[in-house]
């Protein structure tokens, strides 16, 4: 089984979010970039398929050269090869088309993407990619088994979960549950050394038509002061939630 894991290069959760160039661009100054957390679960699950079922695992990112350390980290975790599509994409549709080109050319059976990236949170790339490829698609995937060309997947839904049967080629939007957080793979020294020798191929983009584009960013209004209620006067909280906040 040939697996491709899509890796988003995103600001670490604890990063301060600021904008520059008249609020039109994200200010990367001093920001630490990491593998998107939802993609980490997918990458670890892919490693499981590699170890248990002999799958090959490539990782891919659509981005500029600055994303290469993130791809190298994925190689250090155990991926066999990395691909970087050399463009700074403007929307999910563009990313999906660029990824689809690579999938078609290389014939991957299973594509694992995160359910969403933690920067734009669009959650659109996996579904678009599947539809462009004519592949099956499972969103919010929290469990995946593959036997031959048959797959059983579990997806989280509002108020429960659903188990589905499907087949390869398959794209999933994965998240925590694919593996548990305690099982996430961390690069060790040997992995880091080996990653240096592994191929990181740069592919030029096809530059499809852009459907959506960012105009500007805005930060939320600063939050007002908290209203503290005395622990001995809990009734006051009920009163405030009813009369002031009007939520009960």
């Amino acid at each position, binding site marked *: 089984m040939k697996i491709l894991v899509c890796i988003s290069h995103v600001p670490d959760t604890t990063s301060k979010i600021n904008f520059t160039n008249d609020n039109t661009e994200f200010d990367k100054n001093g920001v630490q970039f990491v593998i998107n957390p939802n993609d980490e679960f997918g990458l670890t699950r892919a490693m499981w398929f590699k170890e248990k079922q002999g799958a090959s695992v490539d990782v891919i990112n659509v981005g500029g050269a600055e994303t290469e350390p993130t791809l190298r980290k994925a190689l250090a975790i155990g991926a066999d090869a990395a691909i970087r599509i050399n463009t700074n994409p403007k929307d999910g549709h563009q990313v999906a088309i660029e990824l689809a080109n690579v999938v078609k050319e290389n014939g991957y059976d299973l594509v694992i993407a995160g359910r969403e990236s933690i920067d734009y949170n669009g959650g659109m790339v996996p579904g678009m990619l599947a539809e462009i490829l004519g592949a099956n698609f499972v969103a919010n995937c929290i469990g995946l088994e593959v036997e031959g060309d048959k797959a059983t997947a579990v997806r989280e839904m509002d108020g*429960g979960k659903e188990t589905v049967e499907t087949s390869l080629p398959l794209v999933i939007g994965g998240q925590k549950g694919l593996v548990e957080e305690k099982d996430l793979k961390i690069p060790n020294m040997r992995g880091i050394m080996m990653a240096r020798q592994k191929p990181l191929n740069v592919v030029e983009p096809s530059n499809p038509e852009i459907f*959506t584009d960012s105009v500007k960013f805005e930060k939320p209004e600063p939050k007002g002061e908290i209203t503290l209620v005395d*622990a001995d006067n809990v009734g006051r909280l009920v009163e405030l939630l009813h009369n002031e*906040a009007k939520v009960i």
Partner: protein
Amino acid sequence: MSVLVYTESDKGTFKKIALETASYAKTVADQLGTTVTAVTINADDTSVLKNYGVNKVLKVSNKDLDTFNAQRYADVITQACNKEGTKVVILSSSADSKYLAPILSVKLNAGYASNVVDAPSSLEPFTVKRTAFTNKAFNFSKIESDVKIVGVSKNSYGLYENSVELTEEDFSPSIPESGVHQKSINKSSDKVSIADAEIVVSGGRGLKGPENWGMIEELAEVLGAATACSKPVSDLGWRPHSEHVGQTGKPVASNLYIAIGISGAIQHLAGINASKVKVVINNDPEAPFFKAADYGIVGDAFEVVPKLIEKLKEFKAQNA
């Protein structure tokens, strides 16, 4: 060329988000000087939609659609759009709509903006305000394709009653084969789900153990709320992962979020930022949650929560 809205239902009855997306669609239709057409799938009575500005319903009744299937549902909506010559499609931000929207986007060759929190700020170019960076910022995005899809965030727009005349038309699209087949479903029917809840009561490690969750459940019951938990609690197995709220868990966009014994790690706050009013109860006055909340009580949860339950019961009795 009406605005088309997909109004979600469950067992024949519209979900509240269906009425919110209809309200949003009406606003967009007014901006564009057109009408609203809703697509309903196996909904029993569609008359409520006229109260929220829907002029026409394309009513789809087909038992092959009893179970949600993203591919099939996207195909139904695509055929409805083609029939109506739709240029703007409005969807909700439920798990189902977020599942089908990207598929629909490719089928219609349409730009899709998800997590939209306000009516379009401009029609030329068509520009919408979305949340970004896990609710730490907003992004204004323009959709430049001919057909546009907008995914409205839950509780961001609200319900607006706006009575209009409603016509209903049976619509029988062709239903394609799907490569994804439901094997089983595990849905908790007796509890309010986090996604649907107006109020969420959430517990953290400060509750010391799963045996103490009774008071969280009781508080949730009094408020008609869903129960949730922080990441360490689900990692410890005290509560199921489906209740884990945060960056790698479920996002919450409720009207009221009550955090009990949760210190407020940045990953947790990222998951609840979209909630309107936040209350924290914690015995550590230095807990970061006190900086993010609107109301707070510094105190022992085991003393405060039972008192709060009692006061809420009194309040409910007086306001029944």
